[in-house]
Each structure stands twice: as C-alpha cells, then as structure tokens.
C-alpha cells in the first residue's frame, strides 16, 4: 500500500512531480508557492535531478524550454505575476511542440495584488497566456491529493501531446494540508522523446526545434496542426459531478472554490433544495459537452468564481442553445467559506 503523508498542496506538487519522473526544476521565488522550490531543492538533487534557482522568472521559463528540447521531464512553478513573466517562453514552447509542466499557485491581482487566494488567472491560463494562437492543457486541483495526482497526469499529457501543461492551483490549495496517498506510476519509458529530442545528430539527419515559420505556407500549416492537436486533446476533458441527476440548478465552480461550493451544495441538499455541482478538472479542454447536456435537460446554472467573472463565459458558451448562467464572484482579498455561497445559490434557484 502507498504511504500516506500530511502535506501542503505545494509539497504534494513536489512529491507528485518526483513520482512522475521529473528530472529538472527551474524557478524563482514568489509567495504563495515558495514551498515548491524549497522542498524541490532538497529532494530533486537527492534523486539525481537538477534544481536551479534562476536569476528571474524569464530565465527559468527559458531553461524549461531548453530542457524540454532534450526530451527531459522538466517543470517550473510560480505565482501569478511570475507566471506573466514566463509567458513568452510558454508561447515558444507551444509553437515548438515542446512538453513541459508549469505550476501556477494563483494569488490576488491584478499587478502584485496580494499573497492570498484568487482565480483571476483563468483567462490567462485557458487562452494560451502569451502571444499567438495557442493553448496549454490546464488542470485544476482542489485538494492536496489532486495536486499530487495531477502532477503525474500533467507530465504524461505534456509528452503525449508535446505541449505545455499548466497546473492551476491557488493560495488555498498551495498552503492547505491534507493527507496524500503517495502512489507511484509505472516508470517513464526512456524513448518517449526518441523521435524528436535534441541530443547531437551523429549518425543521423539533424533535427530542428524552432518557433519561426517563414517558408511559404508553413505558418498556416503550423497553425492548422496546432488546431488539430487541440481537437485531439478534447479526449482528456474531465469534471467531477455531484448530485446533478435530479438537480434543478447546477453550480459550476473549479479548484478550491469548487470544493467549498460542494459544501454549500451538500448543506442545501440537506435542506431539501435540488442543487448539484459540476467541478471541471480540466479547464482546457473545457467540459462544455457535459454542461450542454445538462442544459438540454432544462437545468439552470450559476457559476461561482474567486474573481470578477471569467469561467462564466465558458459556461455561457456551453449552455447558450438552452439557457444562460448567472454568476457570483467572491473577490480576492479574503478567503471564502461555504456560507458565502448559500445565498447566491438560493437566489439563482428561484
């Protein structure tokens, strides 16, 4: 049986990455994710990997790009303002079809904001984030166990699609402690990058990894290829559902807010209200078909977020043929509890 440890979400990210075979970490400190580089600096070198505290976020993201080009399982982590600084390299990675894992423990914004929880980076996370027409896979853990599990999933998906994968937590998931089952996946196959990694071209034709496409028609084809890849990623869509079958109203919420909303839904159920919950596990690809199917059954929707209204746009797009979604935004600056969502949910139920 796997060992169970009491870990913060930050620590779970580190242990999950190591279980996934992460060999390189590049980072630069920022609250509330500092426990990731701190623990990584102890555990990764001891496991034979490389830990680098870079001179900046920009440098650390470009180091990730470089390590990815050699087919190495590598990652970086930061929190909102630091993630903004990494976006250039993430865009280059997406354009170069390079796998890598980026963890964002979302903090309050815009600007430096505060060090508390927020979901203000939803748009940045699900719309690419940097310049150009690209997407990253986005996983949204709500618990320390999911933080562990999703790191393993993130590395597998990054190499399956040769694409950056973002794990989007927040200050709640980062700092909360919960028991985590430390399971180990099958060891990584050493030839997962055999077809494309840069390792010196002795005895074979040289390979080129770049993001510049100047030849006639090349960039158009590149963008068509990317779209085809994003279509294929739809197979990875995931969501938790709770009490949706007979619900009149569906609450849609992700990450830490999703689990807090689940408490609200549970209490309202106890009071006899027919409410249910959909918690997207993947934010890109988005579980729009699932929401559309629920909308087709005549259900109403409320989207609850820790921001001024971002994911609600995806919910509205998903259900638009049948209905709309109302919205409740809990502003960053404070942390919400289940009581905070009861009244908005009841109001949406009317």
């Amino acid at each position: 049986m796997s060992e169970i440890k009491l870990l913060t979400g930050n620590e779970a990210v580190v242990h999950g990455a190591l279980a996934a075979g992460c060999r390189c970490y590049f980072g630069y400190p920022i609250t509330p994710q500092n426990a990731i580089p701190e623990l990584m600096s102890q555990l990764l070198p001891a496991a034979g990997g490389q830990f680098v505290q870079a001179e900046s976020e920009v440098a650390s993201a470009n180091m990730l790009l470089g390590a990815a080009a050699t087919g190495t399982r590598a990652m970086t982590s930061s929190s909102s303002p630091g993630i903004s600084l990494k976006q250039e390299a993430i865009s280059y990675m997406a354009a170069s079809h390079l796998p890598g894992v980026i963890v964002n423990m979302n903090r309050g914004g815009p600007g430096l904001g505060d060090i508390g929880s927020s979901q203000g980076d939803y748009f940045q996370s699900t719309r690419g984030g940097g310049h150009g027409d690209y997407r990253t896979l986005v996983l949204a853990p709500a618990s320390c166990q999911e933080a562990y599990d999703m790191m393993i999933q993130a590395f597998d998906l990054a190499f399956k699609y040769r694409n950056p994968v973002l794990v989007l937590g927040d200050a709640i998931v980062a700092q909360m402690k919960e028991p985590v089952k430390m399971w180990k996946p099958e060891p990584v196959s050493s030839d997962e990058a055999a077809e494309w990694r840069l390792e010196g071209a002795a005895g074979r034709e040289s390979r080129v990894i770049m993001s510049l496409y100047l030849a006639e028609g090349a960039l158009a084809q590149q963008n068509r290829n990317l779209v085809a890849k994003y279509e294929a990623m739809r197979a990875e869509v995931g969501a938790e559902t709770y009490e949706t079958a007979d619900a009149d109203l569906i609450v849609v919420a992700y990450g830490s807010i999703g689990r807090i909303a689940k408490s609200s839904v549970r209490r309202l159920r106890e009071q006899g209200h027919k409410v249910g919950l959909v918690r997207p596990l993947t934010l890109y690809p988005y579980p729009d078909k699932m929401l559309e199917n629920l909308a087709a059954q005549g259900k109403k929707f409320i989207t609850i977020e820790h921001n001024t209204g971002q994911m609600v746009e995806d919910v509205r797009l998903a259900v638009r043929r049948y209905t709309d979604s109302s919205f409740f935004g809990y502003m960053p600056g404070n942390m919400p509890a289940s009581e905070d969502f009861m009244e908005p949910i009841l109001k949406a139920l009317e």
Partner: protein
Amino acid sequence: MSNKYIDVIIAGFGGQGVMLIGNLLAYSGMESGLNVTYMPEYGPEMRGGTANCTVVVASEEIGSPIIKTPKSLIIMNQPSLDKFLPRIEQGGLAVVNSSLVDCSGADVRNARIVQVPANEIADQLGNAKMANMVALGAYIESTGALSMEVVSRALKNVIAPHYAHLIPKNAAALEAGAEYVRKNMQV
C-alpha cells in the same frame, strides 16, 4: 464513529505555537483514520503578529477547509477572543487561555467557555512556551474529539527533529491541560 465532524479555529500571537497544535490535531485526525484539512492564516510577521489556523476532522469527505462559523475555538490571546468568539456556532465550545485572556467583557451567551490558565500551567512544568500544548490537551479533554494517546503519539511527527528531546515535556503539557479540565470543569 459514524459521521464524526469537528472543526476548530486556533488563534493567537505568532510565536505562541498555534500552527504547531493545529498541525498536531490534523496529524492526529489522520492517524485516527479520518479525513482532515489544516488551513493556516498568517499575518506578515513571524512573531508578535496574529496567527490562526482552521482544522477540520471528519469521517466524510471535507468540502470547505475554511470555516466562518466554527463549532469550536482555541483562543490563546485577547485579540483572538474579540475576533473569533462572535463567530462561534450557537452552543459551540471555546477553550480560552485565561492566563492572557479576560473573558469578562465578552458576550459568551452563544458558547460554552472552558477557561484554562495555560501559561501558568506550562510555567509550572518548566516552560511557558508549552502553553499551546496545555490548551490543546484541555481541548481534547473537553471535546473528546480524538484519543489523547493518538495525539501524544503524533508529537514526533510535528516537532522538528532537533527539538525531539522536548517531546516528553510536550506530552506532559498535553496531559496537564486535560488534567486541569478533569479537575475544574464538569465535562
């Protein structure tokens, strides 16, 4: 042990060890085979600022790790009483460190208050810094939340290795808090 559910906010000055006893309670819940969450909330300062944490221990899946209307409190200093006592659930339980906290001005109608002179008791044991353990011992005794044996055994998991020699003293402080409640309160 069907449908066990406990939540508690533990609050005091930074440096009083509220995070440590929060960790200890969470660890003990985990060792008892229950679901637990531990959620810290710091001021920007390490010492002298305010610090609190929320611990939930439950047999069912835990949704919110953040609790605004707690079922119980461990209050180590005056500002924490003023901040958190008004929020306690009707009929909830508050263990209050009466060495540093004056309850006379507080509206205590909502709650059952267990006053424990935690600093004095810890002082008698030789180290006032263990007031946190005295308070937790009193809490465990007052609520019957978890077995004291499990809590005592979990000390080794939350106390840093270079302080391991202090584990027996901390266990004694836990027991002294429980003992005070047994002698002075009708539980």
